């Protein structure tokens, strides 16, 4: 099932929403979507189209595929659920690496990104420039998140 949100109404629309989500095998699962004001989005974008797509991990452990159009319209579709405790560890690690003061915005023609949204702050980290590689801890965090979808 796909859910499309104009970003400005994303948080309202998705707040504590219970929805039915069909997984790929056709079974119906009840998945609680958190407030979506607490999530990590990771993926890549750019190229000739400029579109960005990746995945979103919510605080409760839901993993969604996330596609953003040029005007930032977000479409998500449920992929899997991981243990909440594991999700919390990712958030802890993300908040440690992407602190409120941390800045890194060096896109290339194709870029990767990490978007951290917490109750306290939001932060986007973008990298892809050959001349300005991302800090190692960011690459490490991104790699760990990517492994979620393998």
């Amino acid at each position, binding site marked *: 099932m796909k859910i499309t949100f104009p970003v400005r109404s994303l948080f309202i629309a998705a707040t504590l929403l219970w929805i039915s989500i069909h997984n790929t095998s056709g079974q119906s699962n009840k998945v609680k979507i958190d407030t979506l004001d607490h999530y990590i989005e990771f*993926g*890549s*974008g*750019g*190229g*000739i*189209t*400029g*579109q*960005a*797509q*990746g*995945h979103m991990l919510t605080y409760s452990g839901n993993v969604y*595929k996330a596609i*953003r*159009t*040029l*005007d*930032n*319209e977000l479409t998500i579709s449920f992929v899997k659920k991981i243990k909440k405790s594991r999700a919390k560890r990712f958030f802890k690690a993300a908040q*440690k*690496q992407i*602190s*409120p*003061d*941390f*800045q*890194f*915005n*060096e*896109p*290339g*023609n*194709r*870029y990767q990104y990490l978007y951290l949204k917490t109750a*306290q702050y939001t932060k*986007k980290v*973008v990298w*892809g*420039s*050959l*001349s*300005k*590689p*991302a*800090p*190692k*801890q960011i690459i490490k965090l991104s790699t760990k998140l*990517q492994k979620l*979808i*393998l």
Partner: protein
Amino acid sequence: MKQIVCTIFITLAAVFLSSAQSLMEEKEKNTYLGIKPEIKATQINGSNRSQDSHTLMPALERVTKNHLLFPSKERNMIYRSPQTGQPIFVLAQPVSSPTARLAYTGEIPNVSYLLQLNALLGLSNAEKMFRVYQTDIDPLGGKVLRLKQYYNSLEIEGSESVIHINQNGGLTSWNGLYINPTTIKITSFSVSEQTAVQKALTDLGADKQVYELSDAEKTFLEYSGPSVRAVYYIDNKVVQTCVPAYIIEIRPNFMDWMEYVIDANTGNILAYYSKTCHVDGPRTSKGADLNGAQQTINTYQIGTSYYAVDGSRSMFKLSASSMPDNPVGAIQTLDLKNTWGSSTTFTSIKSSTNIFNATTISAHYIAGKAYEYYSTVHNRNSINGNGSTIISFINVADPDDGTAMDNAFWNGKAIYYGNGNTLFKPLAGALDVGGHELTHGVIQNTANLSYSGESGAINESMADIFGCMIDSLDWQIGEDVVKPGNYPTGALRDLSDPHNGGTDLSDAGWQPRILSEKYKGSSDNGGVHINSGIPNYAFYLLAQSTKRTSAEKIFYRALTTYLVRSSQFIDLRIACIQAAKDIFGNSSAEAIATGNAFDTVEITENSGTPISPASDDVFVNNGKDLLLAYNTNTNNSQKLFRLELQTSTKTPISNTVISNKPSVTDDGKKAYFVNSANQIKMVTLTLSSISEQIVEQHKIWNNVAISRDGKRLAATTIDQDTSIYVYDFVSQYWVRYQLYSPTFSDGIKSGGPIYADALEWNATGDQLVFDCYNEFENVDGSNISYWDINFIQVWDTIVNDFGDGTITKLFPSLPADVSVGNPTFAKNSRSIIAFDYIDEAASELYVMGCNTENNDLNAITYSNVLSYPNFNRTDTKLAYVYDAGTSTTSRKTIWYIDLAADKISSDPAGTEDVLYDYSTWPVYYSNGTRLATSVLFKTAETQSLLVFPNPNNGDASLLIEANESSNGVVKITDASGKMLSTISITMSAGENNIPLSLPANAPAGFYLVAVESGQKKWIGRLVKL
């Protein structure tokens, strides 16, 4: 002066750390075997937080002279090989005098051009080193001389270069390869020619039939036997060397024709090639592309196999290639086979029949067409302008999850084509898409525009424009690969109408057409694929009002000769108009049409700021422009002198021999320095009452810096002492800060800072920037050593006491053999720093500037000795040291260079010249004041925060007096700046008592507590026992 708190015996039994003779030599500290005097100081160890500390800048990459706007003091544009450091392209200064141009009527002998190479390339006998072997007429006027290089009258095989002569007879450029003769270490030929021939024959016998040809065969082949040429041969196998060698052509049998290169001293085979033409080499193949059209592509045959490698272009270098997988100067298409993640593999595309699939044909054909476009229209030799191999990957899956990729991209090295998914068919089916991606490579090698904001939009626009010129049938992008129903017009974008059938951004493919429609959000890295519509449309309008061929030449010239990484729309306008004037004349219809086109899209002369200036965050000192410097003329006893820059009046200040750069208070009244006896001295700079006194008598000091307000002094000792000492003139305390490494890279086993050297205080007097010598042991047991730049918190302005010694690195890592040092703050911008960049391997030194706020980094100029850069009063000039002496005699000279508004790059319209001869350690200063409210820092209103009890066991309360009820946030950070917790609070009007607990596992030490509410901020320090 020295109140005892605790005694630190500075007994530094330093271990001598051997290091090679280097550019950093003058900063190295020697072993001291005696016993030091002692000073009494409180010791602060700082916080040794490892692994996850932040640095102010990303990792520093290697710098070459290609990074300089003017890579020569003579302002000839010199590009150097990143591998060898030798010039590979030199743009000579144009003939400046119109009279001189008109005076050229007759033929100038070639030797006069060869003589000019001496100045251009720094040679002394170019007329003997080079010989002109071919002269061609340049279609644009003038001529082209092709040169070969000789050494000891023998040709240096492969060392060829080109001189361009303009129609006035002026030498305009040199490019190519030349070998510095000093690198030829062996000149003798000890192996005989016969031995070399025998060596080749023996080697041939291993896999070829070798026999003496009959007379009939020899006559047919016009072959009388092996031919031998003695040459100097450039061997690039490991590092570039040039050695005596024999080049032997030999026909071992009637079929084969081989060439061997034999080392003339070792007899080793350096290289061998088959010159037999009837088997391997370029071929063509025909087949249908993804659109069903029949195309001819260039392939390469090896034996009975054919590869998607185009070795037919003039840039192809067979001798440097390893065929078929690693060709040099070829157009190569590779197959990623839809692999992804850790399973990613790619292969050369091979066919036994010389028939290739449609995707291969499309991608390979596109790369060839794009190469031809740049070659024929813009005289550009491939992506980098120097014959680099063009690589395309087909069958590219989404790198993140392996799904079919609905995109194509350039990753800095190659073009990647996805096979399409929901929006697109296989992307290699579109010539304009491929042209777009290849153009990103051209951009990367020219203006290197960034990928965000307006710079990114120009980047995308240039890729669209030249993609569209390569696929010149229409003005649309991607129309051949868009699946029906996804875009209103069936095209991804349209240069002739950026709205592309839509009404706003919610319509797929819509772009703004004029500046007032510009997207101002943060999506798409600031709208790089959105706002590209505006310059796209300007280009379209220009092409319509002139010709496509005129417009493409104007934009290409703007891209390749004017735009820079941070260029904005206004820069594009200026660049294009200037390019049009350059090509078609100042008053040409094309120049006017260019202005009109940009006017129409609302990029007018007043629509922006050409560059992003670095703003002052401190008021500028209103005094005179003065320079304090040190006389290096040994015949002159006057050492420290003052130069009034407006009048060039020089005034001697001191005869004391000093050991390092002096430091001056912000009011220009006092200078501190270390004398030759290693004591700290102060000299007053007021000319009517110059006086000098020792302020610290221990003979241990190496470097000193005075804070701008003159209240604190920081110093390092002459020993390998892992410390920085700070003295507060008010409390009369010394504090010794123990240096540590705040970060460790992967693979580091042990080690750390050894000693600090140069120091400078920041504007607010709470932080020092310093350089530091480090030694580390890798896990493999090898040692690395380098200098880096760090910041240390030595004063706490809130509690008005010594700081906690937290250290932050400027760069997390440096390239191998690179050091950075001698940092200096801009006078008026906290985030701007200039420093020396030293590449020991290349023996090169650059003066760099960086902005820690936006992570921008630039090479400002170069030097040949440690340059000790220093900003002037207004941050519009940078002084530095350059050695104008000979190889045997030093003559340190202070130069200055005009800075651009960003304060970290040279001003293209500015000058770079000698400021004062026979002098070093320039320090610009002024004798005025800054306004009373001198700090312009854009921070919230900050007040002290009462934390009680303090010290405590981790539980305390905050007492805050608030004017009104408000919400706030409490942030607790440890001494290294690591955020421990953030707590939301609600405050009432009046006194608020807020309980606070550190995390249970928080160790004893200092913690910073900050409460933020709107524009108000309270800061206090918590000490856990």
